């Protein structure tokens, strides 16, 4: 499954969230990640995220799509991080 994950988290917890998400997905913009992930891995990620978040103040949204090819992506302006497995 291919997902886009965005979060809005209070400043003191945001660094933790960033570090967590970097392990599972590719960073593309501030508070935005995307990448290929399995069901189990996503559950794992959400479970960990819950521990960090304050339910009253923070939010995290995951957009799922079956495959990357069903996702049309447009970048306007500077692409902050190109995704490639050939570095």
């Amino acid at each position, binding site marked *: 499954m291919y997902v886009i994950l965005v979060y809005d988290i209070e400043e003191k917890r945001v660094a933790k969230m960033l*570090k967590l998400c*970097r*392990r*599972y*997905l*590719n*960073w593309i913009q501030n508070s935005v990640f995307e*990448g*290929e*992930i*399995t069901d189990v*891995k996503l559950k794992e990620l959400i479970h960990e995220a819950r521990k960090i978040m304050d339910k009253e103040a923070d939010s995290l949204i995951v957009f799922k799509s079956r495959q990357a090819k069903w996702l049309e992506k447009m970048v306007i302006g500077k692409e902050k*991080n190109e995704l490639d*497995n*050939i*570095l």
Partner: protein
Amino acid sequence: MRKSYYLFNPGRLSRKDNTLKFTPLDEDGNEGTPKYIPIESVDNLYTFGSLDANSAMYNFLGKEQVSVHFFDYYEHYTGSFMPKDYLLAGKMLIAQSEAYSNKKKRKQIAQKLVDGAAFNMLKNLRYYNNRDKDTLTQIERIEALMLRIPFAEDIETLMGIEGNIRMSYYAAFNVIINDFEMGNRSKQPPGNEVNAMVSFVNSMCYTLSLDMIYHTQLNPTISFLHQPGERRYSLALDIAEIFKPLLADRLIFSLLNRKQVQQTDFDNRLNSCLLKDSGRKTVVKAWDEKLNETIKHRSLGRSVSYKHLVKLECYKLSKHILGIEEYKPFRAWW
């Protein structure tokens, strides 16, 4: 789905916040913007450029079951960092050694490997023969040689037959490939463009086999067709033999004939010919896409990637060695 990452840029790979951080370096040694590689998505790493790293990174990779394969400046495979074996099985090792030391058993497996490889080579030649490339002489020659496989008395004869098959097969490369001449197979260093491609893609194929063997209980040092030498994972050579025609050679044909790789992608120096970085990147990209391509598997009844096909081959071989099911080499059916 985990994927392979290919590192061409020189740089520093480090462990940071429990994931990987890659800081590219330019020619003057200045650091570029770091890129984070999500560790949970990494299957293995291939490094072509020079890589700085420390043991903390390797400890971490070991824990995450990620292996790193190294290639030198001349595109040779130089070695791998493998996390400690996690599928240890004494029973398997004993059975594998037994299958090796029993002459009859070893010959039987070796024959199947040669047969499978030859069959897949023929598939390629027939395919091109139907497309206005006259490879009939080579086809007939290989067919004649294949008949001798069941009667080979020992491994040496078998290796001889295999060598002859491969020679006829390589002769057909000149017919199949449009703008380049292969001539004789030359390595260390490769003498011309086609040889450079063959060497490079073959080493990728070898590494792939090794990687798949690692994920089974087979021991990569005990081989059947190739002599189990020292300091070499010779079982990977055995497995690669079957898949080279299908994965490596077809890729070479299409890259060269579609002009995706051209004269300018090669570097001719000092009687040798090597791929430039640009060419290498094109090849690696195509190779990676090829491995993730899927086909409908006949007996499994579901789609599997080419990469997984290699792993299935290892499973079949282990089943044969343990006496569960007779090994049938993979034969391309399309």
